[in-house]
């Protein structure tokens, strides 16, 4: 091959568009060719014009705070993370204590009005859900075989997120979601466990008014190497194969 052709491949490689055998052949050639290395460098400098042509967008301050914390854990993040703050079980623990407090309050509230009682009952129900979530999550967090995945919100629900704990040996797990929009009665969210490109149904759930939703994952088929999980919005009752928009996606 004439060297001119390697230089042409260097340009497409610099663009990130070289594929197939051409890419592997060029990478092998590049390892020992200073001329192509220089041409690749010059190509990348030229192509930077695309990045520099964009109207600038300023990142939020908390990214820098998170970053500085990551490279130097002794420095606490100076700015609290907002909607993207990580779920942490200690918060749930506090909720459990609050539940106990509320139950005591209810004991002393026998003589209060019916309206007050109903309001407190609602609060207790909410906190009891938190306690269940706590117990279930602790069970998986303390399981040495359990693995976790952070599910990110995609285009239909960019601010949503999910945390999944799953034991590959038992095939059981739990999914906690936050920020998913409330589904209509004719729809349901469906979790998918994915092995390679094959999605397997892993349970359905609805999102109501609560900020968190908990799904206990039933036993998934043995022998499959699930490494990704996704949540889609499907017709009520669920479907055997995904048909609706994907709201959450993450890898183990």
């Amino acid at each position, binding site marked *: 091959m004439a060297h001119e052709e390697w230089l042409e491949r260097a340009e497409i490689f610099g*663009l990130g568009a070289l594929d197939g055998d051409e890419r592997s052949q060029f990478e092998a050639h590049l390892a020992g060719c200073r001329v192509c290395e220089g041409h690749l460098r010059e190509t990348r400098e030229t192509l930077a014009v695309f990045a520099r042509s964009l109207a600038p967008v300023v990142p939020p301050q908390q990214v820098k705070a998170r970053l500085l914390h990551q490279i130097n854990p002794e420095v606490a993040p100076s700015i609290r993370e907002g909607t993207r703050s990580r779920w942490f079980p200690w918060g749930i623990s506090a909720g459990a204590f609050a539940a106990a407090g509320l139950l005591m309050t209810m004991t002393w509230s026998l003589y209060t009005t019916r309206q007050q009682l109903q309001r407190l009952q609602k609060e207790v129900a909410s906190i009891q859900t938190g306690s269940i979530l706590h117990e279930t999550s602790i069970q998986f967090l303390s399981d040495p075989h359990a693995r976790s995945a952070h599910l990110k919100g995609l285009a239909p629900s960019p601010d949503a997120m999910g945390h999944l704990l799953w034991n590959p040996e038992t095939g059981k797990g739990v999914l906690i979601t936050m920020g998913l929009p409330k589904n209509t009665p004719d729809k349901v969210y469906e979790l998918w466990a994915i092995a390679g490109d094959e999605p397997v149904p892993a349970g359905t759930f609805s999102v109501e008014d609560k900020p968190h939703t908990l799904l206990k994952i039933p036993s998934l088929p043995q022998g499959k190497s699930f490494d990704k999980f996704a949540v889609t919005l499907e017709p009520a009752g669920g479907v055997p194969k995904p048909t609706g928009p994907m709201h959450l996606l993450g890898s183990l």
Partner: protein
Amino acid sequence: MSAQTINPATYLIQQVAQQDREAFSQLYDRFSNLVFTLAMRMLRVRSDAEDLLQEVFVQVWRQAENYSAERGSPEAWIINIARSRAIDKIRSIRRMEKSFVLTDDPARAESGENVESSAAESEARLAMNSALANLPEAQRKVLELAYFDGLTQSEIAERLAEPLGTVKTRMRSGIQRLREIVSSRAA
């Protein structure tokens, strides 16, 4: 002894290689807008762009000692890290979405919060846009599909229903033309 001129950003990277956190903070301030802007354009989801920005600078922190000015400008080095990571994410999502209903690109796109930049930055950006505007539309199209959308030459050929050879020619011609424009402006 002769005075040695050194690019300020190169100096910062050298300091970062010595685990200098203050230099790292300055380097972030210098390039974070560029990386985040590029990430928003490529990934189109703000949370993904924020994650990418963080990942890029963690890599910069860990690999600063591997940087050499002979291998390119700091800007091109950081952009290359950002693009490589963004393309990996795009291709991963694309592989996943083949099993699902494809998300329409316009719906996926999130609008970024553009900011007023300095007069010098605005002028530089206008010059870059002017350079791109001088490219024939067909050449600019294939370059943008590769640069921003992470498509390979074969994928672009398939999407545009054009022969692979035509796509390659347009890419190479576009890069050559862009190189000439950029060089003439720098001269």
